[in-house]
């Protein structure tokens, strides 16, 4: 039996979520309709509200309800430290895992010439302008450890040096609790090259 048109539309809409194919979209739709109408209404309201109210922070470009996000608006954060990440999710991860007290700049991507994403598309001119203001003393590069993330870090470091800003890159190494024998070759090789004095 075919789905009702309205149910079909719901299934199609759910498929915009990452990792959700036709089968799981169908399961979600019927779950909401048959077992959890309250949940469905809450979800609809939350989506609607978030869609209306969430925008980009003027300074760091992460998601925010106001012109400035909570981090950028917080007067107690250290404005001389700026951490560059690829996505808002990376900002969240750092906020939760570290005691970092500086500010962020979210690239919303990474340099990827074959996808047509160059410095301009990432808004690196705005980052340059921010550095030119002179408030930032250290730029922390926390892009991913992929070839594209490394190239992005590399490119930004040249921009930062033009503005005489100190540039650091987050370290890369053996995971906590990791035993060398079981760590993959690349991670071990990076960790070895990044060794430091004790």
């Amino acid at each position, binding site marked *: 039996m075919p789905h009702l048109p309205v149910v079909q539309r719901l299934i199609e809409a759910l498929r915009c979520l*990452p*990792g*959700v*194919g036709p089968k799981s979209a169908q399961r979600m739709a019927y779950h909401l309709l048959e077992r959890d109408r309250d949940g469905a209404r809450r979800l609809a309201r939350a989506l609607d509200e978030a869609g209306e109210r969430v925008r980009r922070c003027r300074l760091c470009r992460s998601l925010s309800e106001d012109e400035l996000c909570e981090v950028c608006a917080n007067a107690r954060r250290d404005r001389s430290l700026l951490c560059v990440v690829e996505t808002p999710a990376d900002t969240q991860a750092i906020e939760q895992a570290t005691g970092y007290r500086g500010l962020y700049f979210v690239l919303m991507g990474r*340099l990827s*010439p*074959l*996808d*047509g*994403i*160059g*410095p*301009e598309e990432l808004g*690196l001119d705005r980052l340059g302008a921010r550095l030119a203001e002179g408030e930032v003393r250290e730029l922390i590069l926390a892009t991913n450890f*992929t*070839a*594209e993330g*490394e*190239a992005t870090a*590399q*490119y930004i470091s*040249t*921009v930062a040096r*033009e503005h005489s800003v100190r540039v650091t890159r987050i370290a890369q190494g053996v995971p906590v609790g990791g035993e060398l024998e079981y760590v*993959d*070759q*690349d991670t071990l*090789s990076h960790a070895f*090259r990044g060794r430091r004095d004790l």
Partner: protein
Amino acid sequence: MSHPRRVALQPGHVLHQRPYRDSSLLVEAFTPDFGRVGLVARGARGPRSRMRGLLQPFRPLLLSWAGGGDLATLVGVEADGPMRVLAGVGLLSGFYVNELLVRLTARHDPHPALYHAYVAVLAGLQDSGREEPALRIFEKRLLQELGYGLLLDREATSGRAIEPERLYRYRPELGPVPADEGAAQYPAIHGRNLLALAHERPDFDAEGLREAKGLMRNAIARQLGDRPLKSRDLFQGAPQRRSGARGSGGDA
């Protein structure tokens, strides 16, 4: 040309990868026996995928795939030796080389010699300060493999041997002509630098680097057509030690 249904442990490098469907990656790989191939890595975007870390550019791999269509399914990937450490200009130049291969080679067009040249240029790009000569040799071999090899050791019309100290102008699709015989709109290059490219002994001085870059930039631009290379943008911000990917020769 028909493609085999199953390929096991083919050496290769990832040129590019992008998200594909729900949780997969579409990988553009370059291999010696099958040229450039499009491979779907199923589930490779999952957080626990072991493939994802391996499927990075500049990483020597052994690839296994199945399927005979334009896109095959990646069924196995293994590291083939230690990771290459590309940094700085070498890393950005690596993206330039990959973009050249994606733009100028066709899928399923085998180029064993070009694969060899690719491995050689990646090795060269690891050597800080020697990136430009490595790029020039790669560009020369790329053009040769594509069927647009440059005439480098003889004059175009007369066929006379190139003299090291003489200045030439390189006429596209023809070859070098003595600079005092006109053709002033074409890239200028000294005989010694033409011969260095011909014999792949690129011990260029600053002038030689500039001339060789001008020549190659011009020759490659003819193959690229109207759409410029995006990776060139990466070199615009690099103030010192500009790499070969940023040319002074100007597009033809």
